[in-house]
């Protein structure tokens, strides 16, 4: 399990709240964790990917109530610069305990900011809960727009859900028209920066979660830190989250491991390629996990 990082426990889990599940991407784990943490004071605000000016264009927002949090349910496969709000949350929002959700690279940024708080004075000690989501790659909004409008031939305003799974990018609309395109078509729309990333399951988060490895409607959850463990166990006890053992779950951790290995070996190759002297201008990146 080399590429899954350190974790205290792994679960098959989903939200215990019907409202959350109704609009959730998979198991609604992030929304449920934050909702529970907000209700119980583990955090007093969460930085999430809220609705933006265009459909499916996320914009970071600070949710201080469960109602605000609900506006951000579901995955938007485009970039939400959540870290940009991390300082403002402690300033004009007056938060002392921040929850933040992010992709593996964003969680790396949070941790690095906690270690070296340059431009983040008085922020490091105020990060209470960092939730990571599994991430293979991310699309700039213009790329996502093109995938939906051109390849899937769907007006993006009509889309009710987007999903990546089983080798396909799927788009669902209200009228019941579903389009699917194979992932190999989407590759050219990926952010180039994603190809140097060596983290699939947010190794540095308190809790990381994603759909891979568990049946539809459930999420795989890695509980990594002591703070994450305490919050997760309490959320399970309080009924906000239903968690079951991963034993015997198909496709299970093998698939997570397979995809993580796939991403990381592919990106390592790309890093080596960049390190080659013909590309000397592109400096190789250090593997942050060595």
């Amino acid at each position: 399990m080399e590429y899954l990082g350190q974790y205290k426990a792994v679960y098959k889990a989903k939200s215990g709240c019907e409202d959350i599940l109704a609009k959730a991407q998979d198991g609604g784990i992030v929304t449920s964790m934050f909702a529970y943490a907000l209700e119980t004071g583990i955090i007093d605000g969460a930085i999430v990917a809220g609705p933006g000016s265009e459909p499916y264009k996320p914009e970071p927002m600070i949710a201080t109530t469960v109602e605000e949090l609900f506006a951000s349910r579901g995955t938007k496969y485009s970039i939400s610069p959540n870290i940009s709000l991390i300082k403002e949350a402690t300033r004009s929002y007056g938060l002392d305990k921040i929850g933040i959700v992010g992709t593996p690279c964003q969680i790396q940024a949070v941790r690095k900011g906690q270690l070296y708080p340059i431009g983040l004075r008085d922020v490091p000690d105020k990060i209470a809960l960092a939730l990571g989501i599994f991430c293979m790659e991310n699309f700039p909004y213009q790329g996502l727009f093109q995938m939906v409008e051109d390849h899937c031939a769907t007006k993006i305003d009509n889309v009710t859900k987007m999903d990546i799974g089983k080798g396909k990018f799927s788009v669902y609309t209200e009228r019941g028209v579903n389009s699917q395109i194979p992932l190999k078509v989407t590759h050219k729309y990926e952010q180039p920066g994603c190809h140097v990333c060596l983290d699939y399951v947010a190794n540095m988060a308190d809790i990381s979660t994603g759909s891979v490895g568990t049946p539809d409607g459930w999420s795989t959850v890695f509980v990594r830190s002591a703070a994450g463990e305490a919050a997760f166990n309490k959320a399970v006890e309080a009924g906000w989250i239903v968690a079951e053992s991963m034993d015997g779950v198909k496709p299970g951790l093998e698939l997570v491991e397979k995809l993580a290995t796939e991403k990381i070996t592919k990106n390592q190759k790309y890093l080596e390629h960049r390190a080659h002297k013909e590309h000397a201008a592109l400096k190789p990146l250090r593997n942050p996990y060595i």
Partner: protein
Amino acid sequence: MSKVVEISPTTRHEGHSKLVLKVNDEGIIERGDWLSITPVRGVEKLAIGKTYEQVPKIASRVCGICPIAHTLAATEAMEASMGVEIPDDAYLLRVILQCANRLHSHALHDILALPDMYIPGTDTKINPFTPEEPVRSVAKRIQTLRMIGQTIGEIVGGEAVHPSNPRVGGMYKNITPRARAKVYDLAKQAIPLAREQMEFMIAVFENYGKRDWAEMCGREVAIPKDLGYHQQGYMAADPLYGSTSLDANPGWDPARWLEVRPWDWYMGEEEITLEDPAYPVGGTTKAGTKAWPQMQACTGVPLYDGQPVEVGPRARMSIFKNYDRKGAIGLNIAREMEYMDSVYKMIEAADAVNTSAPVCADVIPQGDGEIGWAANEAPRGCDVHLAKVRNGKVEWFSMLVPTTWNFPTCSRALTGAPWELAEVIVRAYDPCVSCATHMIVLDENNKLVAQKLLE
């Protein structure tokens, strides 16, 4: 026969300055010069040609203790030049910032001033870093007060040091109701602490004023009853916040201000003839060294009605509240008396601010080159910034900072005191020297040619 002694650098205040003192045979100062030797920042020159948004940010970098005052003064100087009216709620946020700055700065001064003072009723000097009571709880209280000031500055200003939130036209962001609640709670927490701190410090200063002697250089030095008295006037623009040229009744008058060269105001070249290796820390300057205050002073000498004036807590208290204590002790006590006002005003402003109102002006005219000034009552006194903005670019910028005003005034106040206590007088002004540095021009023979040229 008078002797010359030099204390360089002076300690326990911000920046670098020194004292050149002519003393008589009894060690009493006949003529004192206190001057800045901080290298020039060049902010006024850097500002030329920059946009009006950039200049307040650059100006605030002149110092890290009252950057809030410099940000607000420079921002308002731009607004005054361009004729921008800011929304009421933006003003209230600025008032909170101002009070937060004053709270933390006064608390910081306490820790710098305490080592000169005695625990009342004893002959023990106060060491604020000792783990022993009663000093330990005082040090903790000072830190808590500073924490409160800095945290409130951080919430409202975006950053405790060099605030990012104030902008020309108001503020970038209003605060959320939760942030306002936090400001309120912190200010409430500060009320009893500030009162205890004020009462403690006043008792300590009064005790010093009643003492006959203070221990310096291993000997007992007599404390004169008129320690730090001077005959100069006071200048203050407002009891709490400030004033600009847009006000109906401006609190400051540029026509009464004149800036002259230190050449005209300080001593000529002198040879040090008195030294004391026992003076803390490391002794005074060695005898035989040369000092040349009129060349070495890195400030201009601003005059108000042709005379140096005092700015700061006592100036505000004297002009607006009929306070009448003179001398170094009177100045220290006036500063302590400002604690409560800054906390109460913070609460009042937090109460009044509407967290959902806009905090930036709708229209920001780009300026037509008219001169505008803003006088902000910084913790150390009246901080005046002047600016001319044309088509969004700053044509001319000048900073008249508190300690610049206080340098020549305090130099007058040194007369009559034993030289060993000169630093006690200097510290009463809570000097913050780095912003008080101006450019001078030398010709090929190292003679000062002009200062006004490069201001």
